[in-house]
């Protein structure tokens, strides 16, 4: 009797879950993106209309950006901003936790403190910014009463600023955890040796710590980028529903029962996200370095 391959048996439950809740729905989405639709029904078909409408006017350059390109541009702007700030802050926090906090107990305590905001819901943390940043919010009223400004600052809320702030606030931890994890594995004697050889702190960071925590940086980046690419709630709530995102367009189409159009949008979004992740995996071989 052939011995069953025990490792594939272990993987089987998760493979089944992935197949039925991820692969199958994804195939359905691709299929539906070629269907026709009316206000109240889906019509099985094979048409390219959903994609044609999606890219309508995109390749006639004279007329400014088409909706789809403008939306992706706006989405990528926030992806880039969020990625940059979460990376800088996340890297800094991890660096402090691993190399500046000496005792392991203290490291764990501080690390847990970082997770405390996650005890409240995502949406609550997002909405809490509104009374703070509003025209008559705490920030504006404090600044006015301190005499720093005469007029409330309008761009604090429902702006690119508040959206970026919200994203950074919500997702920095996704950067901290994997970077912390890979930094903790760095052999401390490497740092000592570098110091003894006369390396400056900056040289240690750029020549030793960053290269050795590449896998953590990459995993954190994948988390943050894939979350922000598909977001529509944060952009909606903190952007006053006035800022375009791909997720938002899909949401509007879904609420008007235009499932095939939404599916076409989703297929394009998934493709672009996969390409981005693939490109990042090229830069760093995460599996090898874990």
């Amino acid at each position, binding site marked *: 009797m052939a011995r069953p391959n025990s490792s594939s048996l272990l993987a089987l439950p998760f493979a089944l879950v992935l197949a039925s809740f991820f692969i199958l729905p994804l195939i359905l989405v691709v299929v539906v993106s070629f269907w026709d639709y009316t206000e*109240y*029904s889906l019509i099985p078909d094979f048409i390219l209309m959903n994609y044609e409408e999606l890219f309508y006017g995109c390749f006639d350059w004279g007329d400014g950006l088409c909706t789809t390109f403008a939306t992706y541009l706006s989405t990528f702007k926030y992806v880039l901003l969020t990625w940059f700030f979460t990376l800088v802050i996340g890297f800094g926090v991890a660096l402090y936790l691993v190399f500046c906090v000496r005792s392991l107990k203290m490291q764990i305590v501080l690390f847990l403190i970082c997770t405390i905001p996650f005890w409240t819901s995502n949406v609550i943390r997002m909405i809490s910014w509104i009374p703070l940043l509003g025209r008559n919010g705490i920030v504006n009223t404090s600044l006015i009463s301190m005499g720093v400004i005469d007029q409330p600052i309008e761009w604090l809320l429902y702006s690119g600023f508040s959206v970026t702030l919200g994203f950074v606030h919500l997702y920095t931890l996704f950067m901290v955890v994997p970077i912390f994890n890979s930094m903790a594995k760095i052999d401390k004697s490497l740092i000592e040796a570098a110091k003894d050889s006369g390396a400056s702190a900056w040289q240690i960071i750029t020549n030793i710590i960053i290269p050795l925590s590449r896998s953590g940086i990459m995993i954190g980046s994948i988390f943050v980028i894939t979350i922000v690419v598909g977001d529509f709630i944060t952009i909606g709530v903190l952007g006053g*529903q*006035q800022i375009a995102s791909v997720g938002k367009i899909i949401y*509007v*189409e879904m609420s008007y*029962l235009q499932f095939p159009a939404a599916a076409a949008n989703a297929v394009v979004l998934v493709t672009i996200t996969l390409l981005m992740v693939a490109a990042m995996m090229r830069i760093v071989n995460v599996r090898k370095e874990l």
Partner: protein
Amino acid sequence: MSKKTQENTIGLSRRSFIKGAGTLAAASMFGGVAPYVMSNEKKVLRYLGTAVNQDQAIAAKAKEDLGITIEYIPVTTDEVTKRILTQPNSFDLVDTEYFSLKKLVPSGNLIGMNANRIKEFDNIVTAFTKGEVAGKKIGDQGTAPKKVFYKDGETSKNFSSTPTEWVTLIPTVYNADTLGIRPDLIGRPINSWAELLNPEFKGKASILNIPSIGIMDAAMVVEAMGEYKYPDKGNMTKQEIDLTMKVLTEAKKQGQFRAFWSDFNESVNLMASGEVVIQSMWSPAITAVRTKGIPCVYQPLKEGYRAWAAGFGLPTTIKGYQADLAYEFINWFLSGWAGAYLNRQGYYSAVLPTAKANMEAYEWDYWMLGKPAAKDIMSPSGQKLASAGEVRDGGSYETRMGGVACWNAVMDENRYMVRKWNEFVAS
């Protein structure tokens, strides 16, 4: 709806498709579907609708009077439509708006309501049945209820232009919508829809982010600015949609809008916090702002109101006992207590005589006749809405409903409109 489209959809309707996909997923996971047993012992109605209409007090009173437990399923306006089309077994009773009927009736997922089983049917206001208020025709642009009131059979997928015994929805509540303003922050009279895009309110205006309603408000503005006169604001051509969205897009680029809102509470917060001083708004939202002690006016405008109407419908799949319960609840709803409750929120109930019998004379005078309040006017939850001597914004029922210019609508070019709306948001 053309025959051709219907034949095409027979093979795999959305419903059977989703059911099939669901069963497939469930079967692959658990090897079968557990039998779903529904107990007939308990009197429970699953009531699908928007949160703004689902008042706990109404459910409590229904429980007390009828012994029926109302289980609210609160979702957004668009989501109600989506649920009816994709999950028609997930509710026993739906409270939806007339404008979505153009999508719902052709799907066959809602059954015709039997007018003979509705006690107060003959007392339903003429705004629904004839499009008249006090004997005078009112605006019927858009999906006016009279256009989609009857079906030509219980399970038919077609509307009937002549009265039949099969009604699409039993009317419950309706209102004439206009702009809400903060008079304390504006400090001058407002009397035209054009003010919404007045640069004076740059960064302090808002519209709702429900495309089909938002574009109607925009159309009221375009007409008020004298840019264009629509043959039917509720059913625009592609060129008219382009024109309307162009006006909105320019305003957005100039920074006219502070935010868009898509849910009742958002509109209340925008207004109460002073982020916005002029915006399209719903009547109970005005009430909610006022009960916080913040001045807020539901400003009547010279171009008229954009009206909406809602009613009860039943899913085609409903069974005898559940249907009896639903009719019992609907008859109770029209019998006065709920109607009075709605009137006190600033809505109008579909059957006025029974509501009148459940209201104090001074309340009726204030809410319905537009007379100065003889005493302080209280909300149903007991907060003060208006002091003695004040007059309701917009005046009497006849002035307000008589001043309706158009109704919430679904356009023939809806698909194009949604695309344009996404373009507008991205601009």
